[in-house]
């Protein structure tokens, strides 16, 4: 295989953002992802918040890239047809001490360049956030906070990068990195050996292991678990803003989150985890999140919860690590990208492009860069008249597969065409199985559609990759 100019390790939002940004230039770019599909690592459990830029340490990469990223994300979402909603956030104070801290946060935020910050009083809160506890006395309002679907952003970035020539390899976990001289890396994966001049490590939780393989082992990724709980879509309008408590030393606290799909979410917890693959949730986490969320919105009930999951934040200390490793020329680490990583992603991509340039790579723009992609249609998100026109154009928009979230056969087939290979991949792209019945009604239909489309027997269809096959075989006699 012809060597790549750049190989990116990791198909999460960071890898995908870098890939898409660099696909503007005349470069041969590859991306390897160990999971079956992009966004299956850290990105899939992201809360989807585009932060305004408060609560970051002054002078840090996080502070600068978050404020920049908030602006850039809007543009990218527009270009790629990803829904971005500027819902605004409220950091809520419940007593006078906390009110004092709001002023401090406002001052710090303004110094970081966060626009539009405002302290609002309880009358404002009553009018604009009626379900909020009447014990709330004030809040810091950050109007530029927004929400996106984290995985759809990754899929659409990847798809667009692919259209502009980036080659994606999934199921390609890196097993070893060897060097055949300066800027000649050899990357060993189950999908083959890749050669590249520049190597970008965006491997999320495993970035320390990848970096060590390349010869730089001066940081460690410590997974910090966050458990999140999704509420029924019926509670979509339980809040109008993202609700935050005052932050602690180590985390932004347990939030009430609006999501791009409509279902509110409560969480996350923040506990150090021993294992980078431990995505279990706990009874204790559930209790803690529920109580904290009820402190803000008393009407949230345990019965509203329809789903939950845990994610791991790839923490590598206080700040992001984004740097060229001079001791291994051509190797760039993009590690420790925890919150506000999703927001910062497009700014990180620009920074990486700059680092590459400074380290000898010439960036020449392509004559034609396809910056725009057609928005993915989702019936649940469009008005009825539009649905009528779509069904007229393609009858299978009227063939509903997932009743809880109103997903048609056409959307499922489109998702597969765009790269879904697993039931989770279909779920993240379309929301089929993500509703209140959890796939009880639609799983069989999805299995069959996927099996037919990718020409694999139903018994080989998985939830999220090898080892997670849905069924154990055919019935005896069949």
């Amino acid at each position, binding site marked *: 295989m012809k060597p790549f100019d750049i190989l990116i390790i990791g198909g999460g939002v960071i890898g995908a953002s870098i890939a898409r940004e660099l696909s503007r230039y005349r470069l041969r770019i590859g991306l390897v992802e160990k999971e079956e599909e992009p966004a299956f690592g850290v990105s899939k459990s992201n809360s989807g918040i585009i932060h305004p830029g408060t609560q970051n340490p002054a002078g840090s990469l996080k502070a600068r890239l978050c404020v920049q990223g908030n602006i850039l994300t809007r543009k990218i979402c527009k270009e790629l047809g990803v829904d971005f909603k500027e819902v605004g956030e409220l950091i809520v104070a419940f007593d006078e001490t906390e009110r004092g801290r709001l002023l401090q946060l406002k001052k710090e935020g303004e110094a970081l360049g966060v626009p539009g910050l405002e302290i609002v009083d309880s009358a404002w809160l009553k009018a604009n956030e009626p379900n909020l506890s009447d014990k709330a006395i004030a809040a810091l309002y950050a109007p530029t906070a927004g929400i996106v679907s984290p995985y759809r952003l990754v899929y659409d970035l990847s798809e667009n990068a692919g259209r502009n020539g980036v080659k994606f390899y999934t199921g390609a976990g890196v097993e070893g990195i060897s060097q055949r001289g300066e800027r000649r890396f050899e990357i060993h994966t189950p999908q083959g050996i890749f050669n590249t001049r520049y190597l970008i490590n965006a491997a999320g939780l495993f970035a320390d292991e990848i970096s060590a393989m390349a010869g730089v082992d001066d940081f460690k990724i410590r997974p910090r678990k966050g458990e999140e709980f999704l509420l029924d879509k019926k509670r979509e309008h339980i809040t109008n803003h993202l609700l935050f408590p005052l932050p602690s030393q180590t985390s932004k606290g347990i939030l009430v989150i609006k999501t791009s799909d409509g279902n509110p979410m409560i969480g996350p917890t923040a506990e150090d985890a021993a294992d980078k693959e431990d995505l279990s*949730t706990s009874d204790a986490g559930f209790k803690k999140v529920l109580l904290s969320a009820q402190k803000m919105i008393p009407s949230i009930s345990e019965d509203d919860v329809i789903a939950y999951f845990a994610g791991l934040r790839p923490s590598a200390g206080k700040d992001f690590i984004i740097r060229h490793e001079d001791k291994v020329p051509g190797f760039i680490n993009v590690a420790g990208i925890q919150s506000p990583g999703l927001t910062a992603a497009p700014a990180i991509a620009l920074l990486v492009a700059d680092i590459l340039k400074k380290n000898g790579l010439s960036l020449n723009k392509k004559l034609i860069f396809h910056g725009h992609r057609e928005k993915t249609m989702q019936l649940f998100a469009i008005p009825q008249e539009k649905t009528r026109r779509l069904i007229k154009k393609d009858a299978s928009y*009227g063939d509903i597969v997932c009743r809880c979230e109103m997903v048609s056969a056409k959307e499922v087939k489109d998702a597969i065409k765009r790269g879904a290979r697993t039931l989770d991949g279909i779920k993240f792209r379309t929301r089929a199985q993500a509703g*209140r019945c959890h796939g009880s009604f639609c799983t069989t239909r999805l299995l069959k559609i996927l099996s037919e489309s990718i020409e694999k027997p139903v018994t080989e269809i998985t939830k999220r990759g090898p080892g997670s096959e*849905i069924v154990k075989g055919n019935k005896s006699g069949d």
Partner: protein
Amino acid sequence: MAAAIAAHESGVKDILLLERDQYLGGILNQCIHTGFGIEYFKEVLTGPEYAQRFIKEIKKIPDIEISLKSFVVDLTRDKTLTFIKPGILEKVKARVLIMATGCREKTREMIHIAGTRPSGVFSAGLAQKLINIEGLLPGKRVVIAGSGDIGLIMARRFMLEGAEVRAVIEIEKKTRGLLRNVVQCIEDFEIPMYFNHRISKINGKDRVESVTAVKVDDDLNDIPGTDVRFDCDTVLISVGLIPENELIEMAGVQIDKKTNSPVSHELNKTSIPGLFVCGNSFKVYDIVDSVSLDSEIAGRLAAEYLRKKI
């Protein structure tokens, strides 16, 4: 179908029956075990046979228009509903509306079982559909959470397919299923049943590897130190049903938050006059015969409502 036929018998001439699936009969189609119809037909039938009796009957009535694969996306207070099916989006206004939308199963998430989210966790009904309709075997070593009837029936079904059912775990003191199902599906197959236990954790990265169960006291609180672990590759959830009433909720019908049924003092009626709910979507019944009988009442109530209107 029972409501439509009864309404027709009571003089209603213009009936539209919307079914979201590709065939009539609903969940009965996957219930291939027997025990249906003892009360209604005085015969022992399988689920598909029971459904077929009604299908045969309804197809004889030209006044009943049947529209399959039809999914209602919107319902308003004045009984205007919008439905879509392949190639069509249509709005119809009904003078009277009967909802027979059935139930969905409670999920693992609704009872908050902690742990991981591997493949191999199924609602009992999905497992039933996979085996009986699709001819697939969901798993080989099974633990069942809850002792609802579908769970009990699926315990036997898995045993008959050569799979091993390691345990049925029920948080209450006694089964919530029918006694006959406990005898025929559990005791006859010597499947261990654990009462006063709940599954506290599902373990396994990609596929279920085991579950942890814990004993609970009379207030359903965990008793420390009573953890038991069952190795298995599959967990079935059979902890009850919830009426599917999201559409009438959209139309403004008062819904009981605990049961998800319409708030009502009279059988099949709702807070919107002329909007009736029947069968399992009105309340969860033990046997289908009662569903049919009460749905017939809904059909007659609808006819009576129309007569009074004129």
